[in-house]
């Protein structure tokens, strides 16, 4: 994929889902991203509605070795030189949903009406032009933040960005970070 030279490699994405207030501003903003064709690619859902009103927000984590791409039978998912894992190539995707079910973060959408997998591609129309992703520009609570690592450390001195995860026995490293308590190096899911 030929990419523009305006992508700012020093900028990173940080998520802190405890800060998500479920306002859905990111969901609406995401639909403004032109690479999605007006379909929102961000997930905001209740964590356990029977017991709490806590919501969680999830964008694509842009894995170093994306499981979605590895289980894709059509070679439709690719990662570029900036580590951005792109949404399915529309000419190739056969709509099997392997990526939807295998992504450890539960990110890809199967758009039944298009017979196509779609997912967040870090607002590539914006980030490739040096701008912030739509969701990060509108999040009012700081659950989604796009900026430098240094800037993040200054804002959240009691937290550390973590991009290593353990799902069962599978270790996953991502481009996107999750803000964890100071000193944490890994988030173990199903601990």
């Amino acid at each position, binding site marked *: 994929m*030929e990419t523009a030279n305006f992508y700012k490699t020093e900028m990173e994405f940080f998520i802190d889902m405890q800060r998500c207030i479920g306002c859905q501003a990111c969901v609406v903003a995401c639909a403004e991203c032109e*690479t999605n064709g007006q379909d929102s690619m961000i997930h905001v859902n209740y964590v356990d509605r029977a017991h709490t009103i806590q919501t969680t927000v999830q964008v694509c984590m842009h894995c170093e070795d994306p499981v979605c791409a590895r289980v894709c039978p059509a070679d439709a998912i690719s990662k570029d030189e900036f580590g951005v894992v792109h949404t399915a190539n529309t000419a190739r995707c*056969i709509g*099997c949903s392997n990526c939807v079910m295998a992504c450890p973060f*539960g990110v890809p959408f199967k758009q039944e009406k298009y017979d196509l997998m779609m997912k967040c591609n870090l607002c590539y*129309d914006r980030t*490739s032009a040096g701008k912030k992703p739509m969701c990060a520009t509108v999040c009012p609570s700081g659950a989604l933040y796009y900026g430098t690592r240094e800037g993040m450390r200054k804002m959240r001195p009691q937290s550390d960005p973590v991009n290593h995860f353990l799902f*069962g026995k599978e270790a996953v490293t991502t481009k996107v970070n999750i803000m964890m308590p100071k000193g944490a190096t890994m988030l173990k899911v199903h601990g």
Partner: protein
Amino acid sequence: MFSYHLNKKAFAIATAATLLLVALVFIGSRKLQNFDAALIAYLFGTVFATFGIVYRYAVWLQRPPTWLYFKRTWQILFSGRFLPYLWLFLRKSVRNIGFQYFIRSRGARRWWGHFLMATGCMLAFAVTIPLTLGWIHFTMDPATGLDPAGVKLYEAHVFGFRVFTFKLGSIIASLVFNILSWSSWLVIIGVALFMFRRFTNGGLIATQSFGGDWLPLVLLVAISVTGLGLAYDYSFLGGTAYEFMAVTHAVTVIIFLVWIPFGKFFHIIQRPAQIGVYLYHAEGRRKGMAVCRHTGKEFTSKQHVDDLKALTKELGIDFTINENTSHLDYSPEGKRSALAQAHLKARESSGRYFG
């Protein structure tokens, strides 16, 4: 640096397919008797394309996820429910391969563009490939040809057998002789719609590449325009530019043929796999759905979850949580919630929810 590892299995399959094609050229053209020598360059291009397409397809099939769907498609089609699945297979093939109906909901103009391009290409393939391989040829009925005042009859032969006869100057003759010109116009209109989209859609502008997205369109236009040039040159210009048009048309077509295995056009060969996916999910729904351990709702078929467990293991990915549970037993929503709960737990145990 360019490095390449020869896939021996794919090489053997591609070589066998190519030899079979060459044998069929000899048989179909009755030992080259009906082969049109003017098309020799196209023949070499087609033979090379056959090798390349079969080679890449064989390499593609060796990928575990691709092999899974390929294997399951045929297993399901030839299972005890052959007739309903054959009906589904045919219905979806006409709808999604013939008419590419799944693109319609992505945008009406986009569908028209693709439909016109694909229909033009498929019509052109249907005519030119058998002609190039010497499987089809046309002759004048000698009896009618001798009478200058009589109606001339033209005969179409397939594999050397006379299949049908039509009158020169009839509507059928006009359709048969001009089908490639009509195909070219369909392709040109379709490409124009796609080029307009690629010039104006911000998302496409951000992600498109010249080699992957523009070159195929440019090549299709070049083939169509030079093809029309051939026909209109001898129709309206007395053939004055015929050699130039013939050479440029041959060059563009051969580049297209040789490039099929490597570039965007390979999706034409991959697309039928989508039909297999319909069969796979229909059979999965019939066998029973998996229920998410977090949401308690059905999210995909048990067959799909089981196949993904085996597939990820084969790929060296291990989502096993314990003996009876895997991360794959969770729906996408369940996975997101599990992550959020683990995050909350980590925050809780640190004594700070924020910071």
